[in-house]
């Protein structure tokens, strides 16, 4: 009896599941097409164009060669910009880690009142729109005479980068059992030694991943820089914008290709590091 009642119901469920599958497959295909068209194709095009031997931008290129890369590395406008970007992004990465790591420890391993507020405050920066932040920062930096200075730029980028290190580091920290420290301490280690030698050591892949992300954030930052940097702080993104104002320089394709390559390597590094993190 019950078997005969079950059968039509099961068939119906099967039909509707097949329809659901078709819809899902179509949606998946559409999403894939959009990603390929708008995200993968343009960079690929840029990469192809970077090997053009023409002194102007045209597609398809009339000749091939390393001309764009030669121009890039022999023009001081570009090499200076690359150097400036490094001089900003490296301290930003170090400073972000130096701020975020103690904050994570304070939030997770101290008995401070309001310790949970630390992370909220640190991550809150993520919800401020960058243009609004830029305008506010303009006022603050000019108040302290930091507008257009190297220090001001490093500070501004650090504020953007700290939340990233916090989020990645904090996720790893919640998975480090406090018993590791307690075990080290009963074995005779002082609290500081247990923190540095055990907890921070176990946390370090995540911290490194956060630092790399901070570096990329600063290196790639193209919005804030227009509001607050002076003539001495022409980073690579700013140099590209300035050059684009005068017309499209085909060197940009070489810069973009190198940037994409470097970012891919760093992001792969971040992913690998996070995998080894707890």
């Amino acid at each position, binding site marked *: 009896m019950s078997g005969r009642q079950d059968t039509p119901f099961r068939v119906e469920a099967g039909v509707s599941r097949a329809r659901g599958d078709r819809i899902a497959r179509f949606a998946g295909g559409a999403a894939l097409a959009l990603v390929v068209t708008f995200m993968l194709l343009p960079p690929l095009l840029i990469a192809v164009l970077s090997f053009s031997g023409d002194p102007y931008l045209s597609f398809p290129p009339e000749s091939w060669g390393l001309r764009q890369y030669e121009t890039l590395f022999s023009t001081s406008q570009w090499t200076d910009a690359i150097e400036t970007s490094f001089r900003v992004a490296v301290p930003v990465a170090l400073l972000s880690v130096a701020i975020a790591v103690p904050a994570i420890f304070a939030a997770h391993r101290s008995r401070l009142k309001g310790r949970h507020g630390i992370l909220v405050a640190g991550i809150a920066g993520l919800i401020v729109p960058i243009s609004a932040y830029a305008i506010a920062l303009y006022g603050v930096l000019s108040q302290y005479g930091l507008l257009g200075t190297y220090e001001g730029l490093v500070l501004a980028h650090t504020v953007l980068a700290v939340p990233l290190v916090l989020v990645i580091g904090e996720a790893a920290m919640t998975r480090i*059992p406090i*018993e*590791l420290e*307690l*075990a*080290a*301490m*009963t*074995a*005779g*280690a*002082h*609290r500081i*030694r247990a923190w540095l030698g*055990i907890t921070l*050591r*176990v946390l370090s892949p995540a911290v490194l991943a956060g630092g790399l992300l901070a570096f990329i954030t600063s290196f790639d930052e193209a919005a804030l820089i227009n509001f607050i940097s002076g003539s001495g702080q022409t980073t690579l993104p700013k140099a590209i914008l300035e050059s684009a104002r005068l017309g499209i320089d085909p060197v940009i394709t070489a810069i973009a290709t190198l940037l994409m390559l470097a970012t891919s390597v760093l992001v792969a590094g971040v992913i690998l590091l996070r995998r080894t993190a*707890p």
Partner: protein
Amino acid sequence: MTTDAGLHIDNVSKHYGQTIALDRAQLGVREGELVTLLGPSGSGKTTLLRIIAGFETPTAGEVKLRGREISRLSPAERGVGMVFQQYALFPHMTAAENVAYGLKVRRWPAAKREKRVAELLELVGLAERANHRPKELSGGQQQRVALARAIAYEPEVLLMDEPLGALDRTLRLEMEEEIRRIHRNQGTTIVYVTHDKQEALALSDRIAIMNNARLVAYGHPEELYYRPSSAFVAKFFAGANTLPVSSFSLNGSGRATVSLCGERCEVPIADNVDGAASLVVRPRSFSLEPGGARITGRVRESLLFGEEREIHLEVDGLGKVNALLDARRSQGVEVGSELSLYFNADESLLVPA
């Protein structure tokens, strides 16, 4: 207790605001003894262990280890070893490096350290796994490394917090054996926390039973099992029935008369009874053959455990009574029927309720 040897917990309390986690605990552990803190969760056993380890500071009282007051010292200064339920091995170190950690912190010379590490890995049967990381070891192997790490520097007392709680049953029995062997060979003083009474029975020289933040009984397993000091101990530790007794009269020489299901019977009485009392009857004391004291009730449940059958009997005025009967002889017992069970009154004991 004027002796300086061993571990002495003297009137130790721990309060968190209004909550009392541990109430005036008093406990002496002799040198080389394995003492188990046994109790349901929230009974204060872990709090007491954490106070001994130095992870918590007592609100009142003293902890003395070999005559030294240690309750205000940092964990590093106490000379204790600790094994955690979740192993807590350092994930970035090999088994050998984990075991060597305490020795390194104590600045043992390299040669001596290596010798000791090899010796310990040998002791726990993991010599071939010396260079493996915790990730590459099974749960049982990890706990062995943790044990070796905790006893490497010869701590004055080894603390174990439900160390077998994360292991499956077969492995648990194997590890019990291992702990017994190491305890016997090394003569380490051990304080062991568990909520599993089988584990406590298998391992302990003495057992401290805890309930509601208090230490309610302390003694040898046999004594606690057959001469429980309270209804809680009898029920929790021996799994015995504790039948409420409304009144009793003393007969002298450790015996009293109680009324049970309308019949009077004479039973042994513990010397600490003062006021309300319960009669302790172990499930195996019951029999279907007439003789001795009798209770009558309705069968609510009948479960076959191979050689034995567990019967749940609902008795007017006494509540639920568990009995373990010979399975073959109790084949006729039916759920819902009326049943009389008999027990030898001399095997029961009247204790404080």
